[in-house]
């Protein structure tokens, strides 16, 4: 008979528990089973009957085990007492549950423990040092009273905790105890375990822990610290917890992952995961490797699952993720650039910026008649139609979808006072947005247009009012976007400098120096045009000061060669 005894706590899926018990027993390990008191007598009798043929298997006194209560500790105690009393050759006692599954041949576990005869494997940490607890009760679980069930009477539970905090009620921790906690699945040596169970003060300790919150994670973990000569603070049972503190469950598709983990025992296994039970209970001793458990990959997968559940994917809005304002962890999924006034001022700006940055450059996405996707497409990635009605039905969804659908591909678009303005608040508060505005540039197309001056005057007044509101939004304190605003007059003084800054910030894989400037539109007479507007009583101010004669004096600007040198 082996020197490892197994305690099994079972409450459901008794068929699976029977299989596992037989597996332990077949490898020579004595087994003591605790059946939850809640299991009906008939089912229980049937289960005992099914296992009656195993000589080294015992059943212990039954307790009612409710999550987070003393019952589970009482069950472990009873089972351990039976084990120590009836199987004197047992050196290590391993606490497992009915939904635990041995992943490696049991003989490997027996050998592993035989090589470490004095080591207690029990995860045990002081409350101050670990972030494990869910729900904010860490040290308080040792100092408050918990007469109400957390599962059944949550409100009462919370109210009573609150009341005790308010009144400053405290329980006294018995002398000599330093509260520790950790995984409830341990493996203790006979020496340590018997010392705990035969402690002269056990009555006092039991009375104390009986009213501690989740004692199964602290009773043995605390007391082992008193008696053990050598604690390895880790559990030999692979058991991962999610963000609510309930164990992750293993299914058939985890087979390879579990195999490669090299852990001795895993929990919790879905009772219908037949492939797992078949694979691991067939005990093919082929893989005799004396490696340490290595659950790294499983850890990562479950850590990612928790991350997905608590943080989610930035910039994604979908049926099961609709963050409240401020909780998005990134309102859009990637960086993008908004240009206002650039296509008005330069003839070939879209092509130019596309070439300089490699980004996808759209026209006026929020134009009143349709969304002007890049290359005059009528449909964009994600099957987004260019319909203005659909876009304006939910502009925010339109933009976040566009960015999400193009993940990894930088998006740029043009924006101006003639566009639908609903999106301005959103983009200005998005840290992913880079917004560059040449204010007043909307006047250039008007200047070139062949329309009646009265119409132009009206249009100019409207556009100026809208752009001024846009600028107010961009200057509001909530703004988180990278915002740059130039007056048009100031911009055309030295256009290359701001352009270089913008391109650098977009940041492409292979940074290039700008060797070619976009072509500035003809501005001869623009100053006079503005003066004419003024003469009509409409004062354009957003573009800055243009001297009347600047138009005639400025032809030196377009042919200006870039001053940046190719490296």
């Amino acid at each position, binding site marked *: 008979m082996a020197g490892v005894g197994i305690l099994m706590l079972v409450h459901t899926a008794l068929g699976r528990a029977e299989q596992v018990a037989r597996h332990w027993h077949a490898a020579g390990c004595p087994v003591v089973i605790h059946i939850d008191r809640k299991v009906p007598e008939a089912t229980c009798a049937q289960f005992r009957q099914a296992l009656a043929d195993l000589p080294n298997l015992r059943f212990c006194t039954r307790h009612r085990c409710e999550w987070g209560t003393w019952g589970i500790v009482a069950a472990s105690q009873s089972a351990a007492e039976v084990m120590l009393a009836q199987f004197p050759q047992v050196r290590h006692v391993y606490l497992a549950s009915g939904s635990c599954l041995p992943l490696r041949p049991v003989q490997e576990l027996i050998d592993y423990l035989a090589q470490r005869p004095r080591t207690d494997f029990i995860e045990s940490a002081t409350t101050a040092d670990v972030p494990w607890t869910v729900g904010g009760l860490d040290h308080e679980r040792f100092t408050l009273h918990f007469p109400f069930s957390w599962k059944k009477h949550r409100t009462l539970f919370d109210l009573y905790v609150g009341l005790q905090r308010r009144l400053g009620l405290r329980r006294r921790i018995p002398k000599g105890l330093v509260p520790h906690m950790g995984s409830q699945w341990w493996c203790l040596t006979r020496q340590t375990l018997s010392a705990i169970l035969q402690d002269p003060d056990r009555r006092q300790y039991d009375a104390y822990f009986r009213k501690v919150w989740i004692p199964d994670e602290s009773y043995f973990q605390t007391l082992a610290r008193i008696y053990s000569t050598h604690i390895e603070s880790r559990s030999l049972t692979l058991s991962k917890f999610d963000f609510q503190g309930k164990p992750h*469950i293993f299914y058939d598709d985890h087979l390879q992952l579990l195999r490669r983990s090299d852990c001795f025992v895993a929990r919790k296994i879905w009772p219908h995961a037949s492939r797992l039970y078949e694979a691991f209970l067939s005990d093919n001793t082929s893989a005799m490797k004396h490696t340490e458990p290595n659950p790294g990959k499983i850890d990562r997968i479950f850590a990612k699952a928790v991350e997905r559940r608590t943080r989610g994917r930035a910039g994604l809005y*979908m*049926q099961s*993720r609709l963050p409240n304002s401020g909780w998005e962890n990134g309102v859009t999924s990637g960086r993008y650039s908004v240009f206002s006034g650039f296509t008005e001022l330069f003839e070939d700006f879209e092509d130019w910026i596309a070439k300089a940055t490699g980004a996808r450059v759209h026209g006026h996405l929020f134009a009143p008649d349709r969304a002007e996707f890049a290359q005059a497409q009528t449909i964009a990635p994600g*099957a987004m139609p260019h319909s203005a009605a*659909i876009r304006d*039905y*939910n502009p925010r969804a339109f933009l976040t979808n566009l960015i999400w*659908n193009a993940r990894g591909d930088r998006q740029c678009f043009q924006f101006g006072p003639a566009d639908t303005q609903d999106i301005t608040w959103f983009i200005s508060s998005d840290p992913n947005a880079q917004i560059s505005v040449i204010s007043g540039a909307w006047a250039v197309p008007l200047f070139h247009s062949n329309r009646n001056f009265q119409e132009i005057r009206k249009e100019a007044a409207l556009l100026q009012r809208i752009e001024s509101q846009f600028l107010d939004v961009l200057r509001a304190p909530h703004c988180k976007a990278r915002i740059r605003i130039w007056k048009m007059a100031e911009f055309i003084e030295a256009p290359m400098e701001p352009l270089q800054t913008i391109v650098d910030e977009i940041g492409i894989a292979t940074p290039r120096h700008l060797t070619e400037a976009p072509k500035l539109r003809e501005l001869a007479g623009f100053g006079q045009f503005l003066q004419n507007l003024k003469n009509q009583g409409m004062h354009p101010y957003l573009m800055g000061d243009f001297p009347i004669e600047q138009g005639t004096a400025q032809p030196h600007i377009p042919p200006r060669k870039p001053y940046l040198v190719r490296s």
Partner: protein
Amino acid sequence: MGIWQSYRLRLQRKRWLIRAFRKRRELRAVADRSAQIRPGDILLFCTQRNEGVRLPYFLQYYRNLGVNHFLIVDNDSDDQSLAYLAGQSDVSLWHTTASYKRARFGVDWLNWLQRKYGHGHWTLVVDPDEFLIYPFCDTRPLRALTDWLDASSIKSFSAMLIDMYPKGPLNDAPYQPGQNPLDIAPWFDPGNYSIKKNARFGNLWIQGGPRMRVFFPDAPEKAPALNKIPLVKWDRRYCYVSSTHMLLPRGLNLVYDEWGGEKASGALLHTKFLDTFAAKAQEELQRKQHYAASVEYKAYAETLAQHPDLWCKWSEKYINWRQLEILGLMSKGNWA
């Protein structure tokens, strides 16, 4: 949400339940095998009319997922479907000739059947052209999902409708009984959905996909809702309010996370757009038994006459649930 509002919703819920109770008389049992239902069985509820050609694959699909019993209301079919369903050993069948519209598009009938047979069970409410996809559905049966939902104290599971369509005209490839409709219509829109929140019931209102893109480009507000909550651990106090889009009590509609995280969710692949669709749309237009004066079917009939290709260059071909999860249409949440 004040007490007054809660109270009004409570009254509304009671009213729907009473209505369902009254509508029970419209149902006549054709094959009542509900005695076969065991505790813990997963039940599927469905209304159907003249879907004979779809039923073989539909039943097969959900049997494979692990549905234990089907409870189906037949609304006055005149094809073979009634006889076919009556002959299935795991189907309980009711028949009615009453108005689909006045039973609130079948909701009253199913609310009644769910109240009577669904209490304490996981219940799935889908149409014969809807196929449930959930995380790990290729390796884990539906029971694995419901067990996990139970363990996580989650009572309702969201699965958004994703409209599937073929490439080319709808009538190019005739659908045969028993055939996987996804063989004909494997395409879908990957990223053009718009979400709004319904403040009163707390559910989301999702619109988009090919139906909005092709049929409602100028009136997007009329496009059909795509949010669905088809899988619920039923209690006799629950009721669906409008199709499976929303439920009462309101808490069941909170299938989305509001603090940045993602809850687990699935998808209903909606294979409405097969060669059978044109005839169906015509028939429904005449019966006028659908939502909002069949505005949807009017739009279909008009558009179908012009250019019946729903496919576009950014359409995505369905591969598996992982693809939908990567696209952000559904999520594993913290199920791993």
